[in-house]
């Protein structure tokens, strides 16, 4: 069926027995689920029951690549992590760039499954089908980059380089939003994959191999790569020039910038300009950063040369700037770079960390907590030093950090009275877009398979702002819009391609066939949106099995309060408005009024048999 694009095998490593197994992935599984996110959901359905808790030995880490991962095209860098995540206590999917996915394929595998628990702290080295363990209690306490450096110093030098994954101290302390870092600059940021890896006592991975992924039509691939490079040169020029940080100014002007823990959604431009992309460029820019085989190089590495935060270096993206910056009342780019760097060194998700420090700041503002409970540290909006100190307290589980480290769900369990100040859905904290300004984002956060998220949940901002049939503050039409962007994203996340470049390959809602034909020899194009829909429904069935119903597709209390000022003043999403959007969304999805996929929907998507295999 496939002449290329897949190795057809996965590697399963059992840490308890130190055995590894090579298993086959069937062509039918690729046909139905494409790769990466789709295969991750499939294996999760089969192997992770609802009774398993995120840090149980029975939880597993599934890493899957897609048919484009590592292929000789531009930006073929992505791979997917699937696990039960500590932040939500449920299904977690997360994707990352980096060299690890491509190198895993060169080792001969489309997927890697890590199960069991190691007796001692270890690192896993995979070279082709050989698996080795590097036991060392000295792994503990290292930052992700220190662990990477240490592991690379112990593996033999080879012509093709090793790729790595590693975790930091926050993961060792089981912070519910600790990340897994890939190589020297990318991460499975959200959801707490780091804590799952730490619970297995694995500090790092290294992988390389000598194989080549077969390609159906190598010449055509070359032609497509050249065309993509030419397209991206002009179409992504601004992205390269200033990166995603440009959104700070745009989203603030549109009145959707999380400001002081979403108490409002805008601040005066002369204040916010301290964290604009242009400020990053003018005062802190060092160089661009590129992922594997990417000619866009959208990452902007910034370094602080003088002042309080001199020496700090990071690559702040829009989400990190928004949530560590204005949401914490901070409009000093040097402080944001320092906070971002600290999160990276501790190994924590900048987005949830920013959200939860902002929550602590609001608790102080409302005098609901005191410095006495927080090792003497007051954490006020706009206080950069306090932001940094609070991040350390979280990673070390000290002071209020001992509660905050458990994430939104843990906090609500321990301190239910703080619930009104936590911006989350299903336990995952918000991305840096206030949905009161684009109501489709509210539905996206509420229905996202991994909790509030602008990627898995869907990014509706463009359509809501520009589409002639939409009104950003209306609820009508948002159900269909969100379904479409979610299904589109689900197949993109299964390709192994960076979403930023997808238009260069025409991976839209009506994709063209040439790229996947050249790679696999199979015409996926007419089926891609159905594959996306199938993945969305499988993920929903997983969530249903984990207890999710309509009442969980919810937004936090703050969304029901009107925005007090700025361009979107007066707007809110009431329970009734969300309910109208959910009704429409469930109807277009073919789900019942509790959000359960109907039998005929599962049948239509060829899922009935798949679901029987658990």
């Amino acid at each position, binding site marked *: 069926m496939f002449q290329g694009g897949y190795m057809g095998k996965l590697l399963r490593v059992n840490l308890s027995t130190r055995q590894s197994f090579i298993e086959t992935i069937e062509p039918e599984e690729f046909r139905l689920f494409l790769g990466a996110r789709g295969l991750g959901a499939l294996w999760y359905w089969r192997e992770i029951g609802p009774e398993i808790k995120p840090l149980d030995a029975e939880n597993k880490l599934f890493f899957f690549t897609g048919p484009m991962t590592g292929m000789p095209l531009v930006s073929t860098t992505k791979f997917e992590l699937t696990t039960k995540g500590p932040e939500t206590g449920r299904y977690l999917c997360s994707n990352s760039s980096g060299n690890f996915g491509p190198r895993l394929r060169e080792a001969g595998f489309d997927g890697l499954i890590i199960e069991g628990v190691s007796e001692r702290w270890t690192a896993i080295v995979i070279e082709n089908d050989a698996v080795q363990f590097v036991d060392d209690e000295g792994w503990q306490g290292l930052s992700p980059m220190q662990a990477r450096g240490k592991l690379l110093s112990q593996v033999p030098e080879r012509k093709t380089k090793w790729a790595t994954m590693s975790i930091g101290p926050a993961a060792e302390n089981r912070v519910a939003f600790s990340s897994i870092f890939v190589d020297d600059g990318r991460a499975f940021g959200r959801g707490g994959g780091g804590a799952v890896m730490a619970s297995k006592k694995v500090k790092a991975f290294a992988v390389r191999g000598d194989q080549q992924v077969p390609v159906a039509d190598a010449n055509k691939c070359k032609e497509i790569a050249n065309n993509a490079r030419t397209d991206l040169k002009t179409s992504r020029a601004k992205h390269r020039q200033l990166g995603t940080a*440009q959104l700070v100014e*745009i989203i603030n*002007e549109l009145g959707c910038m999380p400001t002081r823990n979403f108490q409002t959604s805008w601040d005066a431009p002369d204040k916010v300009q301290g964290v604009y992309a242009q400020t990053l460029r003018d005062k802190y820019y060092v160089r661009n950063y590129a992922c594997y085989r990417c000619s866009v190089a959208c990452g902007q590495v910034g370094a602080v040369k003088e002042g309080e935060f001199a020496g700090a270096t990071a690559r702040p993206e829009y989400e990190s700037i928004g949530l560590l910056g204005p949401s914490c009342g901070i409009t000093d780019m040097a402080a944001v770079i320092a906070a971002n760097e600290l999160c990276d060194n501790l190994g924590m998700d900048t987005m949830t960390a920013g959200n939860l420090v902002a929550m602590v700041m609001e608790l102080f503002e409302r005098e609901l907590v005191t410095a006495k409970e927080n090792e003497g540290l007051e954490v006020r909006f706009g206080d950069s030093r306090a932001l940094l100190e609070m991040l350390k307290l979280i990673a070390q589980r000290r002071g209020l950090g001992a509660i905050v480290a458990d994430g939104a769900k843990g906090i609500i369990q321990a301190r239910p009275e703080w619930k009104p100040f936590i911006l989350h859905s299903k336990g995952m904290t918000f991305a840096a877009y206030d949905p009161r300004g684009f109501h489709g984002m509210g539905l996206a956060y509420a229905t996202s398979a991994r909790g509030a998220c602008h990627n898995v949940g869907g990014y509706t901002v463009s359509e809501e702002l*520009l589409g002639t049939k939409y009104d950003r503050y209306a609820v009508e039409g948002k159900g269909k819009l969100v379904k479409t962007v979610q299904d589109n*994203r689900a197949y993109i996340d299964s390709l192994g391609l960076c979403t*930023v*470049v997808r238009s260069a390959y025409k991976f839209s809602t009506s994709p063209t066939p040439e790229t996947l034909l050249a790679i696999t020899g199979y015409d996926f194009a007419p089926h891609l949106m159905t594959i996306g829909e199938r993945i969305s429904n499988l993920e929903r069935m997983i969530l249903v099995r984990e207890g999710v119903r309509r009442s969980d597709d919810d937004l936090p209390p703050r969304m029901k309060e009107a925005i007090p000022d700025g361009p979107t003043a007066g707007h809110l999403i009431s329970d009734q408005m969300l309910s109208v959007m959910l009704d429409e969304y469930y109807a277009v999805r073919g789900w019942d009024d509790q959000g359960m996929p109907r039998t005929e929907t599962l049948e239509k998507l060829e899922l009935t048999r798949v679901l029987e295999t658990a």
Partner: protein
Amino acid sequence: MIAITVKFLGGLRQEMGTAQTSLSMPDDATVGDLEPRLRALGLDLDSEKNIVVLNNRGLGQWQPNRPLAADDAVIVFPHIAGGSGTSRPVRFPET
């Protein structure tokens, strides 16, 4: 005459050499009159390189015959990357 403020955001500010400008329009000017005036400033609106927003809504969401008012605010910013995930040309960065 009415004065309409036009702000340039992101990388466009550098390209235009200014953060904002003012368009002086006749009293009976409508939304439909905006586009040619913006083009005259040198903005590329054909290749969808740039996005025009009037009072927080995309220009295409307004009726072309809606009269302009003195407190109307226009912002223009570059089509950076990524996309909305639909078949329409994509015009927004994703993060």
